[in-house]
C-alpha cells in the first residue's frame, strides 16, 4: 500500500502505545482524576484497535459496533466514577489516592 494508505500495523502499534501510556499513567499518577482520565485513554485505545481490525475483517461491522458500545459504557462509568470522586472529595477535601489510607489492617 502507499505511504498514505491504510496499514493495519500502524493502527495496532498506535493503539498499543496509547494503551500503555494510559496504563502507566494509571499506575504512576496519584491524582484520582488523572487516573480516571488514564482509564478513558485506555478505553479509547481499545476503540481505535477495534475500528482498525473492523476495517481488516469487514463483514457485519462488529468492531465498529463494539466501539460505540464502549463509548456509551465509558460515559456511564465516568459518571459513576466522578460521583464517587466527588463524594470522596467532600469528605476528605483531597483527590490524591495516596491519602486514601483509612482502610488498613
Amino acid at each position, binding site marked *: 500500500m502507499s505511504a498514505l494508505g491504510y496499514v493495519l500495523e500502524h493502527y495496532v502499534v498506535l493503539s498499543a502505545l496509547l494503551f500503555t501510556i494510559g496504563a502507566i499513567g*494509571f499506575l504512576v499518577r496519584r491524582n484520582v482524576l488523572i487516573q480516571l482520565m488514564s482509564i478513558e485513554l485506555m478505553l479509547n485505545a*481499545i476503540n481505535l484497535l477495534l475500528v482498525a481490525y473492523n476495517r481488516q475483517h469487514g463483514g457485519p461491522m462488529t468492531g465498529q459496533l*463494539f466501539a460505540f*458500545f464502549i463509548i456509551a*459504557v465509558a460515559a*456511564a462509568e465516568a459518571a459513576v466514577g466522578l460521583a464517587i470522586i466527588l463524594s470522596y472529595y467532600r469528605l476528605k477535601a483531597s483527590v490524591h489516592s495516596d491519602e486514601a489510607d483509612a482502610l488498613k*489492617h
Partner: protein
Amino acid sequence: MTFDVVYGLSPLLVVALGALLLMLAEAFGKPNPQGLAPTGEVSDAGAGRAGELGMGAAVVLFVGAALSLGVWLAGPDNLVGLELTRPYLIWDRFTVFVCFTLCLGGGLSCLLAGGYLTEHEIDRAEFFPLVLFSTVGAMALAAAGELLTLFVALETMSLGVYALVGLRRTPRSSEAALKYFLLGSFAAALMLFGAALLYGATGRTDLAGIGQAIAAIGQGEGPGAAQVLIALVLVVVGLAFKVSAVPFHMWTPDAYEGAPTPATSYMAVAVKTAAFAVMVRVLLIAFGDERLTSWASGWPPVLATLAVASMTVANLVAGRQSSVKRMLAYSSIAHAGYALVAVVATIRSPAAEGSILFYLLTYTVSTAGAFGALILCGSRGKEAVSYEDLAGIAKRHPAAAMAFSLFLLSLAGVPPTAGFFGKLYVFQAAIDAELYVLTVVGLLNSLVGAYYYLRVIVFMYMREPAPGATLAVPMRSGYVASALVIAAVLVIALGVLPNVTLEWAAIATVGRS
C-alpha cells in the same frame, strides 16, 4: 417460540422489571416521616422505607430464584425458542444454575440490608434497585456467549456495585468505593484490550467462533498465535481481578471492609459467583483448544499458581486480622482459591464444572449467612467489628452466637455442613484430574483456615469481654433473622442431603466441543 424465550429468560426479566418498579416506588412513594435522616441532609422519598423496599427486592429476587428452578425443571434444552438468543446469551443448564445461586445470594443480601440500613440510619433506599440491576448484569454475565454482551453485562454488574460500596457517606465507605472503582475499571480495560486483540486475531466475537478460529491458528507459531496468548493473559488478569485472586486482590479487603455490610455480602457472593461462571465459560469455550488447555503451553499452570497463591496468602493474612469483617474478606479470597483449583481441574475432569457450581452455591449460603450473623451481632453505634467485640456474646445472646458458629463451621468445611461437601467435591474433581499437588495444598490450607474461623467461635463462647469495653449489642430485626433462618436451613440441608443438588450441578455443563 416467543413463549419459550420469555419463559426461559424469565428470571432475568422479572428481576429487571422488579428493579424498574422499585425505582418508581422509591421515587413516588410516600416518605416515612419518622425515618428521615436526622441530619436533614437527605429527604428523598425512599428515606425511612428501607425495610419495606428491602422486602420487595428480596421477594423479587426469590421469585427470580423460583423461576430459575422452574426453567431448570422444564429443561432449557426443551425450550427450543431459546436458540434465538444465541450466541449472545447462552441459556443452558449451567446458566440457570448460576442464576439460581445469584438470585438467592442477592435476595439474602437484600433482606440483610432491610434490617441493616434501617438500624444504622443509612436508609438510602436506592440500595435495592442497584442490587437488582447488578443482579441482572450478573445473570447476563453468567450467560454471555459473546464478547460484547460479556462486556456490557460486566459493566452493568460492576457499576451498580461501585455505587453500593460508596452508599454510606463516611470517609471509609467513600474510600472503599474509590479504590474498588479505580481498580475495577482498570481491570475491565485490560480485559477489554484482550477482547479487542481476540477479535483482531480471529475476526469473531462469539466465544464458540473464537474457539474454532484459535484451534485453526493454534498449529502455527505465527503472529496470530502470539496475539492470542497476549489476549489470553489480559483476559485472565481481568477475570482474576473480578474473582479477587492473589495477586490481584489488593482492593478486596479495603472494599469489603469499607462497604456497608449487606453490600459486602452481595459483593462476596454474587459478583464472585458471576465472575467464576464467566471465567469457566471463556476459558473452556474460547480458550478450550488442546494446546491452550495443556499443562505445557496454556492457562492451567497460570490458574494453578493463582489458586495456590490465593489460598496460601489469604489464609496466612486472614489469621492476623483484628477485624472480623476484614477476616471474612480474606476468607473470601481463600475461597476463590479453592474454586480456582476446580477451574484448573476442568481440563481433565468432566465433573469439575459441576463441582464449581455446587461449591459456589454452598459458598453463597455460608458467606451470606456469616455476614448476616455479623450484622445481627451489632446495633447502631455498637457494631461488632473486632474479635473483642464478640467476646462472651454467646452468654448474652446465644441465638446470634449459634447462627454465627454454624456459618463459620460451614466456611471452615466441617461436616455435616454445606461447606464440607462443597470442598469435598472440589478436591474430588482435582484428584480425578490428577492434580495431586493442588489437592494437598488445598487440604493444608483448609486446616490453616479452620484456625481463624474457630478463633471467632472461641471468642464468642470462651472469652469474657474486657471490663469497661463497649459491648456489641445485637440488633432486633425480623429481616435479618429471616435471612439467617433461610441461610441456615440451606447450609444444613445442603450438608445433610447434598445428593440432589449435586446431581443437578453435575449435569450443568458449559457444553464444550
